[in-house]
Protein backbone atom coordinates (compact mmCIF):
# COMPACT_ATOMS: atom_id res chain seq x y z
CA UNK A 1 0.00 0.00 0.00
CA UNK A 2 1.42 3.37 -0.94
CA UNK A 3 1.19 6.40 1.27
CA UNK A 4 -0.57 9.58 0.18
CA UNK A 5 0.45 11.69 3.17
CA UNK A 6 3.22 11.09 5.63
CA UNK A 7 3.79 13.41 8.58
CA UNK A 8 6.64 13.10 11.07
CA UNK A 9 7.02 15.08 14.30
CA UNK A 10 5.23 18.05 12.85
CA UNK A 11 5.03 21.20 14.97
CA UNK A 12 3.79 24.70 14.31
CA UNK A 13 4.27 27.58 16.71
CA UNK A 14 2.60 30.93 16.15
CA UNK A 15 3.73 34.11 17.78
CA UNK A 16 0.73 35.92 19.12
CA UNK A 17 1.26 39.54 19.93
CA UNK A 18 -0.48 40.91 22.97
CA UNK A 19 -1.97 44.35 22.66
CA UNK A 20 -0.28 46.96 24.84
CA UNK A 21 -1.71 46.97 28.30
CA UNK A 22 -1.77 50.69 29.04
CA UNK A 23 -4.59 52.88 27.90
CA UNK A 24 -3.33 56.37 27.20
CA UNK A 25 -0.17 57.98 26.03
CA UNK A 26 0.10 59.86 29.33
CA UNK A 27 -0.14 56.67 31.30
CA UNK A 28 2.45 55.00 29.17
CA UNK A 29 4.84 57.91 29.56
CA UNK A 30 4.37 57.97 33.32
CA UNK A 31 4.90 54.25 33.57
CA UNK A 32 7.92 54.54 31.33
CA UNK A 33 6.63 51.82 29.04
CA UNK A 34 6.77 53.86 25.90
CA UNK A 35 9.51 51.85 24.26
CA UNK A 36 8.79 48.55 25.85
CA UNK A 37 8.43 45.86 23.27
CA UNK A 38 5.12 44.19 22.94
CA UNK A 39 5.07 40.89 24.72
CA UNK A 40 4.91 38.01 22.35
CA UNK A 41 3.32 34.83 23.47
CA UNK A 42 3.92 31.58 21.71
CA UNK A 43 0.99 29.46 20.65
CA UNK A 44 1.83 25.87 19.89
CA UNK A 45 -0.99 25.14 17.51
CA UNK A 46 0.39 21.77 16.37
CA UNK A 47 2.74 19.78 18.60
CA UNK A 48 4.79 16.81 17.50
CA UNK A 49 2.13 15.26 15.29
CA UNK A 50 2.97 12.10 13.33
CA UNK A 51 0.65 10.04 11.19
CA UNK A 52 0.27 8.75 7.68
CA UNK A 53 -2.61 8.32 5.31
CA UNK A 54 -2.70 5.59 2.73
CA UNK A 55 -3.64 6.22 -0.86
CA UNK A 56 -7.35 5.70 -1.33
CA UNK A 57 -8.10 6.08 2.34
CA UNK A 58 -10.62 8.49 3.86
CA UNK A 59 -9.11 9.94 6.98
CA UNK A 60 -10.92 12.01 9.59
CA UNK A 61 -9.64 14.57 12.05
CA UNK A 62 -11.66 15.65 15.06
CA UNK A 63 -10.99 17.88 18.02
CA UNK A 64 -12.33 20.84 19.92
CA UNK A 65 -12.32 24.43 18.67
CA UNK A 66 -8.80 25.74 18.56
CA UNK A 67 -7.28 22.26 18.74
CA UNK A 68 -5.17 22.96 15.65
CA UNK A 69 -7.10 21.08 12.97
CA UNK A 70 -7.20 23.89 10.44
CA UNK A 71 -3.56 24.69 11.12
CA UNK A 72 -2.64 21.06 10.47
CA UNK A 73 -4.52 21.11 7.16
CA UNK A 74 -2.82 24.34 6.10
CA UNK A 75 0.53 22.76 6.85
CA UNK A 76 -0.42 19.77 4.69
CA UNK A 77 -1.33 22.09 1.80
CA UNK A 78 1.97 23.95 2.06
CA UNK A 79 0.23 27.20 2.97
CA UNK A 80 1.94 27.38 6.34
CA UNK A 81 5.54 26.47 6.93
CA UNK A 82 6.20 23.94 9.70
CA UNK A 83 8.24 25.14 12.66
CA UNK A 84 9.74 21.67 12.74
CA UNK A 85 9.00 18.24 11.38
CA UNK A 86 8.54 16.70 8.01
CA UNK A 87 5.66 16.38 5.58
CA UNK A 88 5.62 14.32 2.43
CA UNK A 89 2.72 14.29 0.04
CA UNK A 90 2.18 12.02 -2.92
CA UNK A 91 -0.04 13.50 -5.61
CA UNK A 92 -1.91 16.65 -6.41
CA UNK A 93 -3.73 18.28 -3.52
CA UNK A 94 -6.94 20.30 -3.69
CA UNK A 95 -8.43 21.82 -0.59
CA UNK A 96 -11.59 23.45 0.74
CA UNK A 97 -10.24 25.19 3.77
CA UNK A 98 -12.46 27.93 4.95
CA UNK A 99 -15.75 29.48 4.15
CA UNK A 100 -16.11 32.75 2.38
CA UNK A 101 -12.44 33.31 1.72
CA UNK A 102 -9.97 32.04 -0.79
CA UNK A 103 -11.32 33.87 -3.80
CA UNK A 104 -10.17 36.94 -5.67
CA UNK A 105 -13.09 39.04 -4.52
CA UNK A 106 -13.13 41.53 -7.38
CA UNK A 107 -12.93 38.92 -10.09
CA UNK A 108 -15.86 37.11 -11.62
CA UNK A 109 -16.66 33.52 -10.77
CA UNK A 110 -15.42 32.59 -14.23
CA UNK A 111 -12.00 34.15 -13.68
CA UNK A 112 -11.76 32.56 -10.27
CA UNK A 113 -12.45 29.15 -11.75
CA UNK A 114 -9.63 29.72 -14.23
CA UNK A 115 -7.17 30.97 -11.65
CA UNK A 116 -8.01 28.18 -9.24
CA UNK A 117 -7.55 25.65 -11.99
CA UNK A 118 -4.18 27.12 -12.93
CA UNK A 119 -3.05 27.21 -9.31
CA UNK A 120 -3.98 23.56 -8.89
CA UNK A 121 -1.81 22.69 -11.85
CA UNK A 122 -4.12 22.47 -14.86
CA UNK A 123 -3.31 23.95 -18.26
CA UNK A 124 -5.76 26.50 -19.68
CA UNK A 125 -6.88 23.96 -22.27
CA UNK A 126 -7.77 21.47 -19.53
CA UNK A 127 -9.71 24.09 -17.62
CA UNK A 128 -11.68 25.11 -20.67
CA UNK A 129 -12.56 21.48 -21.20
CA UNK A 130 -13.90 21.17 -17.65
CA UNK A 131 -15.36 24.63 -17.30
CA UNK A 132 -18.94 23.73 -18.21
CA UNK A 133 -18.92 20.76 -15.85
CA UNK A 134 -17.71 22.96 -13.04
CA UNK A 135 -20.40 25.58 -13.55
CA UNK A 136 -23.17 23.08 -14.10
CA UNK A 137 -22.24 21.11 -11.01
CA UNK A 138 -22.24 24.30 -8.93
CA UNK A 139 -25.53 25.39 -10.55
CA UNK A 140 -24.15 28.89 -10.90
CA UNK A 141 -24.81 29.42 -14.62
CA UNK A 142 -26.56 32.73 -14.00
CA UNK A 143 -23.93 34.12 -11.66
CA UNK A 144 -20.69 32.98 -13.17
CA UNK A 145 -19.85 36.39 -14.62
CA UNK A 146 -20.70 38.31 -11.46
CA UNK A 147 -17.85 39.26 -9.10
CA UNK A 148 -17.36 36.83 -6.27
CA UNK A 149 -17.96 39.44 -3.58
CA UNK A 150 -21.63 39.39 -4.59
CA UNK A 151 -21.91 35.65 -3.87
CA UNK A 152 -23.62 34.19 -0.83
CA UNK A 153 -21.70 31.88 1.49
CA UNK A 154 -23.37 28.84 0.00
CA UNK A 155 -22.63 29.97 -3.55
CA UNK A 156 -18.96 30.36 -2.69
CA UNK A 157 -18.91 26.91 -1.22
CA UNK A 158 -20.57 25.50 -4.33
CA UNK A 159 -18.02 27.09 -6.59
CA UNK A 160 -15.06 26.08 -4.45
CA UNK A 161 -16.28 22.51 -4.09
CA UNK A 162 -17.07 22.21 -7.75
CA UNK A 163 -13.62 23.40 -8.78
CA UNK A 164 -11.91 21.19 -6.22
CA UNK A 165 -13.61 17.98 -7.33
CA UNK A 166 -13.49 18.75 -11.03
CA UNK A 167 -9.75 19.42 -11.23
CA UNK A 168 -9.41 15.75 -10.39
CA UNK A 169 -6.92 15.94 -7.51
CA UNK A 170 -5.32 12.87 -5.96
CA UNK A 171 -5.93 14.16 -2.46
CA UNK A 172 -8.92 16.23 -1.41
CA UNK A 173 -8.80 18.08 1.90
CA UNK A 174 -12.04 19.40 3.36
CA UNK A 175 -12.31 21.54 6.48
CA UNK A 176 -15.92 21.34 7.68
CA UNK A 177 -17.27 23.48 4.88
CA UNK A 178 -20.01 21.17 3.67
CA UNK A 179 -22.41 22.28 6.36
CA UNK A 180 -23.46 25.47 4.57
CA UNK A 181 -24.80 23.90 1.39
CA UNK A 182 -28.54 23.42 1.12
CA UNK A 183 -29.84 19.87 1.42
CA UNK A 184 -29.93 19.22 -2.31
CA UNK A 185 -26.43 20.44 -2.91
CA UNK A 186 -25.00 18.62 0.10
CA UNK A 187 -26.47 15.40 -1.31
CA UNK A 188 -24.73 16.12 -4.58
CA UNK A 189 -21.43 16.77 -2.85
CA UNK A 190 -21.67 13.59 -0.86
CA UNK A 191 -22.43 11.61 -3.99
CA UNK A 192 -19.38 13.12 -5.68
CA UNK A 193 -17.26 12.30 -2.67
CA UNK A 194 -18.42 8.69 -2.75
CA UNK A 195 -17.45 8.51 -6.38
CA UNK A 196 -14.14 10.02 -5.40
CA UNK A 197 -13.62 7.28 -2.84
CA UNK A 198 -14.50 4.49 -5.23
CA UNK A 199 -11.97 5.84 -7.72
CA UNK A 200 -9.28 5.27 -5.13
CA UNK A 201 -8.61 8.89 -4.26
CA UNK A 202 -7.55 10.07 -0.83
CA UNK A 203 -9.85 12.19 1.30
CA UNK A 204 -9.00 14.12 4.42
CA UNK A 205 -11.98 15.37 6.40
CA UNK A 206 -12.16 17.68 9.37
CA UNK A 207 -15.57 17.64 10.97
CA UNK A 208 -17.37 18.26 14.24
CA UNK A 209 -20.07 15.83 13.22
CA UNK A 210 -19.16 12.48 14.76
CA UNK A 211 -21.81 10.66 12.73
CA UNK A 212 -20.36 11.93 9.46
CA UNK A 213 -16.92 10.91 10.52
CA UNK A 214 -17.83 7.37 11.52
CA UNK A 215 -19.87 6.96 8.34
CA UNK A 216 -17.15 8.16 6.00
CA UNK A 217 -13.73 7.51 7.41
CA UNK A 218 -11.67 4.38 7.56
CA UNK A 219 -9.38 5.84 10.17
CA UNK A 220 -9.46 8.92 12.34
CA UNK A 221 -7.27 11.14 14.46
CA UNK A 222 -8.21 13.10 17.55
CA UNK A 223 -6.27 16.31 17.97
CA UNK A 224 -6.25 17.98 21.39
CA UNK A 225 -4.34 21.17 22.09
CA UNK A 226 -2.23 20.49 19.04
CA UNK A 227 -1.32 16.97 20.11
CA UNK A 228 -2.48 13.61 18.87
CA UNK A 229 -4.63 11.99 21.52
CA UNK A 230 -5.76 8.98 19.53
CA UNK A 231 -5.44 7.43 16.10
CA UNK A 232 -7.50 4.44 15.05
CA UNK A 233 -10.86 3.33 13.81
CA UNK A 234 -13.40 6.15 13.80
CA UNK A 235 -15.61 4.48 16.40
CA UNK A 236 -12.73 4.04 18.89
CA UNK A 237 -11.51 7.59 18.38
CA UNK A 238 -15.03 8.99 18.62
CA UNK A 239 -15.65 7.01 21.78
CA UNK A 240 -12.51 8.34 23.45
CA UNK A 241 -13.31 11.88 22.33
CA UNK A 242 -16.91 11.75 23.54
CA UNK A 243 -15.88 10.23 26.87
CA UNK A 244 -13.52 13.10 27.48
CA UNK A 245 -16.15 15.66 26.47
CA UNK A 246 -18.69 14.03 28.77
CA UNK A 247 -16.12 14.06 31.57
CA UNK A 248 -15.36 17.70 30.95
CA UNK A 249 -18.98 18.79 30.92
CA UNK A 250 -19.88 16.82 34.06
CA UNK A 251 -16.84 18.28 35.78
CA UNK A 252 -18.01 21.73 34.72
CA UNK A 253 -21.48 20.95 36.04
CA UNK A 254 -20.03 19.86 39.38
CA UNK A 255 -17.96 23.03 39.56
CA UNK A 256 -21.02 25.10 38.77
CA UNK A 257 -22.98 23.48 41.60
CA UNK A 258 -20.16 23.73 44.10
Amino acid sequence: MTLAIHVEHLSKTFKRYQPRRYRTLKESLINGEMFERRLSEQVEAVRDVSFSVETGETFGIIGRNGAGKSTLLKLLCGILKPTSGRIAVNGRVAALLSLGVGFHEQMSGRDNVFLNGLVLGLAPREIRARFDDIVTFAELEDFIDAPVWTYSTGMRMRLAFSVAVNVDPDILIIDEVLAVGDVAFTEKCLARMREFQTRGKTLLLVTHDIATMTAWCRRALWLDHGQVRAIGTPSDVAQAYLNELAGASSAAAINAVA
Partner: protein
Amino acid sequence: MQHLKDMSRMRLTIFRDHGWLLYSLVLRDLRGRYKGSFLGFFWTFLNPLLLMLTYTVVFGYFLQVNAPAYPAFILSGLLPWMWFSTALLQGSTSILEGASYVGKTIFPTPVLPLVPVLAGMVNYLLSLPLLLILLLFFKLPVGWGLLCFPVLLIIQTLLLCGLTMALSALSVTFRDTQHLLGHIVTILFFMMPIMYPLTAIPERARWIVEHNPLVGLFYGYQQIFYYGEVPHPQRLLWLFVFAVAVFYGGQVTFNRQSESFAEHI
Protein backbone atom coordinates in the same frame (compact mmCIF):
# COMPACT_ATOMS: atom_id res chain seq x y z
CA MET B 1 6.72 10.55 -2.47
CA GLN B 2 8.02 14.07 -2.54
CA HIS B 3 8.84 16.35 0.30
CA LEU B 4 6.23 19.07 0.51
CA LYS B 5 7.30 22.31 -1.09
CA ASP B 6 6.72 25.50 0.80
CA MET B 7 4.51 27.42 -1.56
CA SER B 8 5.23 30.85 -0.16
CA ARG B 9 8.92 30.74 -1.11
CA MET B 10 10.20 32.54 -4.17
CA ARG B 11 12.19 30.23 -6.41
CA LEU B 12 13.24 30.71 -9.99
CA THR B 13 11.26 27.61 -10.94
CA ILE B 14 8.14 29.68 -10.38
CA PHE B 15 8.28 30.75 -14.02
CA ARG B 16 8.08 27.12 -15.06
CA ASP B 17 5.68 25.84 -12.39
CA HIS B 18 3.24 28.73 -12.51
CA GLY B 19 3.88 30.14 -15.96
CA TRP B 20 0.25 29.95 -17.01
CA LEU B 21 -0.94 31.56 -13.82
CA LEU B 22 1.56 34.37 -14.23
CA TYR B 23 0.56 34.80 -17.85
CA SER B 24 -3.14 35.03 -17.12
CA LEU B 25 -2.65 37.39 -14.17
CA VAL B 26 -0.54 39.68 -16.36
CA LEU B 27 -3.16 39.58 -19.07
CA ARG B 28 -5.85 40.39 -16.53
CA ASP B 29 -3.82 43.28 -15.19
CA LEU B 30 -3.42 44.71 -18.69
CA ARG B 31 -7.08 44.27 -19.53
CA GLY B 32 -8.12 45.73 -16.21
CA ARG B 33 -6.03 48.87 -16.56
CA TYR B 34 -8.39 50.68 -18.85
CA LYS B 35 -11.49 48.54 -18.52
CA GLY B 36 -14.65 50.57 -18.39
CA SER B 37 -12.94 53.68 -19.69
CA PHE B 38 -14.24 55.28 -22.84
CA LEU B 39 -10.89 55.63 -24.60
CA GLY B 40 -9.68 52.23 -23.42
CA PHE B 41 -6.39 51.18 -24.90
CA PHE B 42 -5.61 54.69 -26.13
CA TRP B 43 -4.79 55.68 -22.58
CA THR B 44 -1.55 53.78 -23.13
CA PHE B 45 -0.61 56.65 -25.46
CA LEU B 46 -2.62 59.43 -23.87
CA ASN B 47 -1.09 59.14 -20.41
CA PRO B 48 2.52 59.66 -21.48
CA LEU B 49 1.44 62.13 -24.14
CA LEU B 50 -0.26 64.41 -21.61
CA LEU B 51 2.69 64.19 -19.24
CA MET B 52 5.09 64.88 -22.08
CA LEU B 53 3.13 67.96 -23.17
CA THR B 54 3.08 69.32 -19.64
CA TYR B 55 6.81 68.79 -19.16
CA THR B 56 7.54 70.22 -22.57
CA VAL B 57 5.67 73.41 -21.74
CA VAL B 58 7.14 73.75 -18.25
CA PHE B 59 10.72 72.63 -18.78
CA GLY B 60 11.27 73.01 -22.49
CA TYR B 61 9.51 76.36 -22.87
CA PHE B 62 9.18 78.13 -19.49
CA LEU B 63 12.45 76.98 -17.95
CA GLN B 64 14.32 76.66 -21.23
CA VAL B 65 16.02 73.35 -20.46
CA ASN B 66 18.80 72.95 -22.97
CA ALA B 67 17.86 69.85 -24.95
CA PRO B 68 16.96 69.99 -28.62
CA ALA B 69 13.86 68.05 -29.63
CA TYR B 70 12.81 68.19 -25.99
CA PRO B 71 9.60 66.11 -26.41
CA ALA B 72 11.64 63.21 -27.78
CA PHE B 73 14.19 63.65 -25.01
CA ILE B 74 11.67 63.53 -22.23
CA LEU B 75 9.67 60.67 -23.69
CA SER B 76 12.69 58.41 -24.12
CA GLY B 77 13.22 58.47 -20.35
CA LEU B 78 9.64 59.03 -19.24
CA LEU B 79 8.18 55.88 -20.77
CA PRO B 80 10.49 53.47 -18.90
CA TRP B 81 10.11 55.64 -15.80
CA MET B 82 6.34 55.22 -15.91
CA TRP B 83 6.87 51.48 -16.07
CA PHE B 84 9.31 51.73 -13.18
CA SER B 85 7.23 53.83 -10.81
CA THR B 86 3.89 52.15 -11.53
CA ALA B 87 5.33 48.68 -11.07
CA LEU B 88 7.03 49.69 -7.84
CA LEU B 89 3.91 51.23 -6.32
CA GLN B 90 1.57 48.46 -7.43
CA GLY B 91 4.02 45.70 -6.63
CA SER B 92 4.59 46.88 -3.10
CA THR B 93 0.91 46.45 -2.19
CA SER B 94 0.42 43.25 -4.16
CA ILE B 95 0.55 40.85 -1.23
CA LEU B 96 -1.53 42.98 1.11
CA GLU B 97 -4.17 43.25 -1.57
CA GLY B 98 -4.31 39.48 -1.81
CA ALA B 99 -5.46 39.28 1.80
CA SER B 100 -8.59 37.37 0.84
CA TYR B 101 -6.59 34.40 -0.43
CA VAL B 102 -2.97 34.70 0.74
CA GLY B 103 -2.61 32.20 3.57
CA LYS B 104 -6.19 31.05 3.22
CA THR B 105 -6.06 28.86 0.21
CA ILE B 106 -3.55 27.12 -2.01
CA PHE B 107 -1.92 29.95 -3.93
CA PRO B 108 1.71 30.69 -4.88
CA THR B 109 2.18 34.09 -3.28
CA PRO B 110 5.50 34.85 -5.01
CA VAL B 111 3.78 35.41 -8.36
CA LEU B 112 1.97 38.45 -6.96
CA PRO B 113 4.82 41.02 -6.92
CA LEU B 114 5.97 39.89 -10.37
CA VAL B 115 2.66 40.60 -12.08
CA PRO B 116 2.82 44.43 -12.12
CA VAL B 117 6.41 44.29 -13.35
CA LEU B 118 5.60 42.10 -16.33
CA ALA B 119 2.34 43.88 -17.11
CA GLY B 120 4.20 47.20 -16.94
CA MET B 121 6.78 45.92 -19.39
CA VAL B 122 4.13 44.93 -21.90
CA ASN B 123 2.46 48.28 -21.46
CA TYR B 124 5.78 50.01 -22.01
CA LEU B 125 6.42 48.08 -25.22
CA LEU B 126 2.94 48.96 -26.42
CA SER B 127 3.58 52.66 -25.82
CA LEU B 128 6.83 52.67 -27.82
CA PRO B 129 5.21 53.59 -31.17
CA LEU B 130 4.56 57.02 -29.67
CA LEU B 131 8.30 57.50 -29.12
CA LEU B 132 9.16 56.17 -32.57
CA ILE B 133 6.80 58.68 -34.16
CA LEU B 134 8.51 61.50 -32.27
CA LEU B 135 11.95 60.24 -33.30
CA LEU B 136 10.89 60.28 -36.93
CA PHE B 137 9.24 63.66 -36.53
CA PHE B 138 12.39 65.26 -35.11
CA LYS B 139 14.55 63.32 -37.58
CA LEU B 140 16.72 61.91 -34.80
CA PRO B 141 19.36 59.41 -35.86
CA VAL B 142 18.47 55.83 -35.04
CA GLY B 143 21.63 53.83 -34.57
CA TRP B 144 23.01 50.46 -33.65
CA GLY B 145 22.31 51.36 -30.04
CA LEU B 146 18.80 50.00 -30.50
CA LEU B 147 20.31 46.53 -30.42
CA CYS B 148 21.02 47.15 -26.73
CA PHE B 149 17.32 47.68 -26.07
CA PRO B 150 16.59 44.07 -25.01
CA VAL B 151 19.50 44.24 -22.57
CA LEU B 152 18.03 47.35 -20.95
CA LEU B 153 14.65 45.62 -20.77
CA ILE B 154 16.17 42.64 -19.00
CA ILE B 155 18.09 44.85 -16.60
CA GLN B 156 15.01 46.84 -15.69
CA THR B 157 12.88 43.72 -15.29
CA LEU B 158 15.40 42.14 -12.93
CA LEU B 159 15.73 45.35 -10.95
CA LEU B 160 11.99 45.80 -10.64
CA CYS B 161 11.31 42.17 -9.72
CA GLY B 162 13.93 42.39 -6.98
CA LEU B 163 12.50 45.63 -5.65
CA THR B 164 8.85 44.57 -5.76
CA MET B 165 9.66 41.26 -4.07
CA ALA B 166 11.41 43.06 -1.23
CA LEU B 167 8.86 45.87 -0.91
CA SER B 168 5.77 43.69 -1.11
CA ALA B 169 7.20 41.48 1.63
CA LEU B 170 8.28 44.37 3.83
CA SER B 171 4.96 46.15 3.59
CA VAL B 172 3.21 43.16 5.15
CA THR B 173 5.10 43.68 8.40
CA PHE B 174 5.85 47.40 8.12
CA ARG B 175 2.80 49.15 6.80
CA ASP B 176 4.72 52.43 6.59
CA THR B 177 6.54 51.12 3.53
CA GLN B 178 3.86 52.34 1.14
CA HIS B 179 3.75 55.86 2.54
CA LEU B 180 7.49 56.14 2.35
CA LEU B 181 7.61 54.65 -1.10
CA GLY B 182 5.35 57.30 -2.59
CA HIS B 183 7.84 59.96 -1.51
CA ILE B 184 10.87 57.97 -2.55
CA VAL B 185 9.47 57.54 -6.04
CA THR B 186 8.84 61.28 -6.37
CA ILE B 187 12.29 62.18 -5.09
CA LEU B 188 13.92 59.66 -7.41
CA PHE B 189 12.11 61.13 -10.38
CA PHE B 190 13.41 64.63 -9.70
CA MET B 191 16.89 63.43 -8.86
CA MET B 192 17.35 61.66 -12.17
CA PRO B 193 18.12 63.25 -15.51
CA ILE B 194 14.79 62.37 -17.08
CA MET B 195 13.23 65.83 -17.35
CA TYR B 196 16.60 67.52 -17.84
CA PRO B 197 19.91 66.35 -19.30
CA LEU B 198 22.77 65.55 -16.96
CA THR B 199 24.64 68.59 -18.25
CA ALA B 200 21.94 70.88 -16.83
CA ILE B 201 23.22 70.10 -13.32
CA PRO B 202 26.11 72.28 -12.10
CA GLU B 203 29.28 70.23 -12.29
CA ARG B 204 30.06 70.25 -8.60
CA ALA B 205 26.60 68.85 -7.82
CA ARG B 206 26.65 66.17 -10.48
CA TRP B 207 28.00 63.49 -8.17
CA ILE B 208 24.68 63.49 -6.29
CA VAL B 209 22.98 62.18 -9.36
CA GLU B 210 25.78 60.26 -11.00
CA HIS B 211 26.20 57.81 -8.14
CA ASN B 212 22.65 56.57 -8.52
CA PRO B 213 22.84 53.30 -10.46
CA LEU B 214 19.33 53.87 -11.79
CA VAL B 215 20.64 56.86 -13.69
CA GLY B 216 22.75 54.51 -15.79
CA LEU B 217 19.62 52.64 -16.79
CA PHE B 218 17.59 55.67 -17.82
CA TYR B 219 20.58 57.30 -19.48
CA GLY B 220 20.93 54.07 -21.45
CA TYR B 221 17.40 54.49 -22.82
CA GLN B 222 18.18 58.11 -23.72
CA GLN B 223 21.40 57.07 -25.42
CA ILE B 224 19.82 54.52 -27.71
CA PHE B 225 16.69 56.51 -28.55
CA TYR B 226 17.61 60.16 -28.27
CA TYR B 227 21.37 60.57 -28.58
CA GLY B 228 21.69 57.76 -31.13
CA GLU B 229 24.67 56.36 -29.25
CA VAL B 230 25.68 52.86 -28.29
CA PRO B 231 25.84 52.42 -24.50
CA HIS B 232 29.25 51.45 -23.20
CA PRO B 233 29.35 47.64 -22.86
CA GLN B 234 31.20 47.83 -19.57
CA ARG B 235 28.52 50.09 -18.11
CA LEU B 236 25.84 47.71 -19.28
CA LEU B 237 27.67 44.82 -17.69
CA TRP B 238 27.90 46.67 -14.38
CA LEU B 239 24.24 47.54 -14.56
CA PHE B 240 23.41 43.92 -15.25
CA VAL B 241 25.46 42.72 -12.30
CA PHE B 242 23.79 45.34 -10.13
CA ALA B 243 20.34 44.24 -11.32
CA VAL B 244 21.12 40.60 -10.60
CA ALA B 245 22.29 41.56 -7.13
CA VAL B 246 19.07 43.50 -6.51
CA PHE B 247 17.01 40.58 -7.78
CA TYR B 248 18.83 38.19 -5.50
CA GLY B 249 18.54 40.57 -2.55
CA GLY B 250 14.83 40.92 -3.19
CA GLN B 251 14.40 37.19 -3.35
CA VAL B 252 16.22 36.70 -0.04
CA THR B 253 14.19 39.44 1.63
CA PHE B 254 10.99 37.93 0.30
CA ASN B 255 11.85 34.47 1.54
CA ARG B 256 12.84 35.71 4.96
CA GLN B 257 9.43 37.28 5.36
CA SER B 258 7.46 34.68 3.46
CA GLU B 259 6.66 32.68 6.55
CA SER B 260 4.76 35.59 7.99
CA PHE B 261 2.49 36.32 5.01
CA ALA B 262 0.23 33.41 5.74
CA GLU B 263 0.17 34.19 9.45
CA HIS B 264 -0.08 37.98 9.60
CA ILE B 265 -2.45 39.01 6.86
